[in-house]
């Protein structure tokens, strides 16, 4: 749909902005990680090849920020969305950004969607939203994942055992399927029947996992062995990226593309691969930044 509207390799900005306006704009890109507490997401989460190849699509490739926050918390928490708002605001102000593309992965899409859906929760949110061009949500966990339900392991038993089995963090709790359904109904926008988000939220959907020690493709940030995957796939649908069902990745905003339709060699993007420079994903994201 996005390709149809904007052209396969054209920037939407090229269609929507006048040349004069483009010249006056300052373009930037932000990388927003998924569940976890990151202190060096550039090295540890995205890795330099992904970040550097993508930001090369900007008129000024120095206008980028790699966010490091604590996304083990609920999406609205000051350490999650609050931290994200702080880092985006600092970046926008320091660089004078007027057109910001936000690239999220996994649960980072939920934290970003919290900001877009709740603009009055924090006085920094409106300015961030007004500067956003659009959000490219890589494998967003918009409708949660059955694996979050599974790891919580029937939490009443954890209660009865005094949480002896290991209390999972709030982000995992939040990404249970029934919890995300409730948050989507009460607190978040962009899912079916709910008001649209104030800015575009374009998802990239991973549909399959190549996992074999004999398949070199599975080594691009993928799964080198399939012992665990063969088990976890039992919790997921036939269309999944090994962590999220396609239905969850497609639940909010608009599907930009499914992996096999755009990746080199029609390769799928596993959940690990959709945050790395695999099969041309970095090139597609780089071209999307061009004006």
């Amino acid at each position, binding site marked *: 749909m996005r390709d149809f509207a904007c052209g396969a390799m054209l920037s939407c900005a090229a269609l929507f902005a006048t040349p004069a306006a483009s010249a006056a704009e300052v373009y930037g890109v932000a990388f927003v990680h998924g569940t976890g507490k990151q202190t060096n997401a550039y090295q540890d989460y995205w890795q330099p090849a992904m970040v550097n190849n993508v930001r090369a699509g900007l008129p000024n490739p120095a206008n980028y920020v790699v966010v490091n926050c604590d996304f083990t918390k609920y999406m609205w928490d000051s350490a999650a969305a609050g931290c994200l708002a702080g880092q985006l605001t600092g970046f926008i102000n320091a660089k004078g950004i007027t057109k910001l593309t936000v690239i999220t992965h996994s649960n980072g899409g939920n934290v970003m969607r919290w900001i877009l859906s709740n603009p009055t929760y924090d006085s920094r949110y409106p300015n961030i939203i007004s500067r956003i061009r659009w959000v490219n949500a890589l494998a967003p966990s918009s409708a949660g994942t059955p694996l979050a339900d599974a*790891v919580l392991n029937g939490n009443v038993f954890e209660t009865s055992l005094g949480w002896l089995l290991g209390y999972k963090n709030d982000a995992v*709790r939040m990404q249970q399927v029934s919890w995300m359904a409730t948050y989507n109904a009460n607190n978040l926008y962009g899912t*079916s029947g709910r008001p649209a988000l104030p800015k575009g939220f374009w998802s990239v959907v991973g549909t399959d996992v190549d996992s074999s020690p004999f398949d070199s493709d599975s080594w691009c940030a993928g799964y080198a*062995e399939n012992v665990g995957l063969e088990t*976890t796939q039992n919790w997921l649908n036939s269309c999944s990226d090994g962590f999220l069902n396609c239905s969850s990745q497609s639940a909010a905003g608009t599907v930009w593309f499914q992996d096999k339709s755009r990746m080199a060699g029609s390769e799928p993007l596993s959940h*690990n691969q959709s945050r790395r420079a695999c099969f041309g994903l970095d090139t597609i994201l780089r071209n999307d930044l061009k004006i």
Partner: protein
Amino acid sequence: MRTSKFAALAAASLVFVAGLASAARPLIPAGASDQIPQRLAKLPAPGGEIERKPVSFSWALDPAVALSEPEPFLAESREYWQTVEAGELSVGVGLPVSAKGALIRVSPARGAAALKTGDFDIMQGGRKIAIAHAAGEAELRKAGMDVSAGTQVMKLGDDTGPGRYTLRAPKARGAYLVHVFEPRSDVVLHARADRNHALAGGDMRVAISGSRAGKGARLQSQALLVSPDGSSRNVPVRAARNGGMEAVFKLPDDASTTKGLWELQVFADADGTPRDARTAFAVAQPTAKFAGIFGHDADALRVSLPVEAASAGRYEARGTLYATARDGSLRPVSEAHGAAWMEAGSGTLVLQFARAHVPAGYGAPYEVRQLELNDQSRMAPLESRERGARF
């Protein structure tokens, strides 16, 4: 600085409302599915980092895209859990299984001995069953499933069928949680709450049903209401008039304000197969409510909403502006939110829609629908009206 700005805005709001006093109208009478607080709760001031500045925001909606209230989540379970002690495991624990390919997961409680696949025997009718596939904590975590320490998952093969299996682990020491998940089973437990959110002290209903191969299954069930702080209480389950079962219960007046969702956890037996399901919903302490009237400036598309707050907090009004199209139908054109910190007492929240969001050919009469009042400081949906105001 923040205080003086807020005071100035609050004063301006009061003047604005006073100026519109002659235009004040009652909100549209509440519908059956609307949530309206019937009492107000006095709570201590909320803790944590909470925004104090008033903020408003609006954006355009596509009138061609219809909006609808999302259905509450339908939980579907093909799984069950049970806790077992080492003594039971060492002699054998019975596990009903309804389909081939079942997964049996064993997680040790703190202090219990971690077991490996080779430590388990799975038997049926005195015959040892081969484990088709197994994975431990390390392999599962590598695949993105962050299981608890010492967890083992064993999958039964396609040559296994329904029946009662025995899980035995002579080396067990301590307590264990055994989880049986049957992704290919046609025995399913369903549970669905009647709402996505409710108020403390209010009534709630969760419909419970079981099926086998798509047809109704004989069901026995119990239910536990679990709050976000982990406390729980039993709630009664009874036969429903239209078949199946239902848990109808009153939410506690003193419901915890711990952030997170409430769950009704259902433990059932469907035609002899155990099944457990979880539903989730939000529960709010009614700290504030709309006063039941609104003022408006039709030219500016501004709607002011008096609020009665019993507790200090940050409150937010949000609503969708529907405009009348040439064919007479009402279509969504704009979304507006307005939030401010309020002390206990009376206040006003303003929804400022943008004239620019109203497409050519659309105009009055307008309706504000999906009108909501939220306690942002406690993550609580307080009041919701499908149809709020018409002007």
